[in-house]
């Protein structure tokens, strides 16, 4: 079976600095992979490379069958990325942000409404992004990702800023991933919480990846 993500000696430069210095990584469909490592290890860069937001400078990178060295835009329709920012518009309501994201990828308004419910923001549907709390914004960002009905979900420090309910919502998404044929890469410092949800862990050190022991059999 073709892996969802396949990297071989992948190098990504930020300026002249090799933020990724030869990463090898295979991720199969339905896997939940935890990316761990210290600050500056290259976790965010790796996720942004896989999302196609950063260019591949050397090596090979194939995501959902797309060769990122040749084309890093086509696969994006099937990839959702929850980063440090929400990717939302301050003057649009939570529902409008979700519906815009859903329609852009060809998903239905129902998918947007279902995502709104899934992240527990129904009561805030008509509230503008600017008026949401930091935690609600993080939930909305997750909702926007889910509304796009992705095949690959990239999460960068998704627990940050979430309250207990928000964390439970996120955990439920990760637990349901395999059943939904959703592949997840999650970069996190909250290792105890995330290890129990991940099928395996990849440790990044100075821009290079090493596979840790399986976190969940």
């Amino acid at each position, binding site marked *: 079976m073709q892996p969802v993500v396949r990297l071989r000696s992948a190098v990504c430069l930020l300026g002249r600095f090799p933020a990724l210095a030869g990463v090898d990584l295979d991720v199969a469909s339905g896997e939940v992979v935890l990316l761990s490592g210290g600050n500056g290890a290259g976790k965010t860069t790796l996720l942004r490379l896989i*999302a196609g937001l950063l260019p591949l400078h050397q090596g090979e990178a194939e995501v959902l069958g797309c060769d990122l060295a040749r084309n890093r835009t086509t696969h994006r329709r099937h*990839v959702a990325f929850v980063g440090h920012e929400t*990717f939302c518009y301050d*003057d649009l309501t939570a529902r*409008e942000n979700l519906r815009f994201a859903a329609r*852009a990828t*060809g998903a239905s308004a129902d998918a947007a409404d279902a995502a709104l419910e899934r992240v527990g923001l129904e009561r805030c549907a008509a509230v*503008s992004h600017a008026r949401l709390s930091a935690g609600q914004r993080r939930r909305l960002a997750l909702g926007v990702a889910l509304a*796009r009905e992705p095949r690959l979900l990239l999460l960068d420090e998704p627990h940050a800023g979430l309250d207990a309910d928000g964390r439970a919502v996120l955990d439920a998404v990760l637990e349901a991933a395999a059943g939904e044929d959703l592949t997840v890469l999650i970069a996190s410092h909250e290792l105890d919480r995330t290890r129990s949800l991940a099928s395996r862990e990849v440790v990044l050190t100075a821009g290079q990846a090493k596979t840790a022991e399986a976190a969940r059999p």
Partner: protein
Amino acid sequence: MNLVQEASLVAGKDLRIEARSRVTIQQVLPFGLIVLLLFAFALDPDRGVLRDVAPGLFWVTVLLAALLAISRSFAIEAANGARDGLRMSGLDPAAIFLGKAAAVAVELVALEAVLTVGVIVLFDVSLGAIGPLLLATVLATVGVAATGTLYGVLAASSGARETLVPVLLLPVVSPVLLGATRAWEAAIDGAPSDAWPWIGVLAVFAVLYTSIGTLAFGPLLEEA
């Protein structure tokens, strides 16, 4: 979704944001009216001169106000990493360009309608041949919106977006200023046949920059 539907989605999003934030109504429109008023005060002693230069003053005012609308169009993409969201959206970059340009054009048309009334009242201008005048206005607006959107995304990669947009844009749109001013002069003077060559220039400019923008916006968005 096809290209038109995707462009409509982007334009609808931008116009909805403008309707909510009211930046165009509360800032861009008053700015345009103030500029017209300042011209009127400066040239008031000679109403004849004011009437003669009214088309040029109108289009200079539109261009200055357009700078604000274009900067605003990209400022909303800068907040919360929305530009990365747009890149990840799966929308065709050509559709994003056409949608954002269309939204800017709609805002400019609304602005021009109000400024036209201002020119009639303040500068004592009577509009002659309406057909050529409207056609010149539409084509000039499309040209400014397309060029502005193209240079707006180019400037978005710079931290000095607000100051870079005028420096990049104003020299490029000088043919629009010239063509629209000449077409308006001819239309106001009741000599529409003199307007058509300039309308041709405006049409070529609008088609050229819409085509360039459709092709170049994607790579520029990736670099931004």
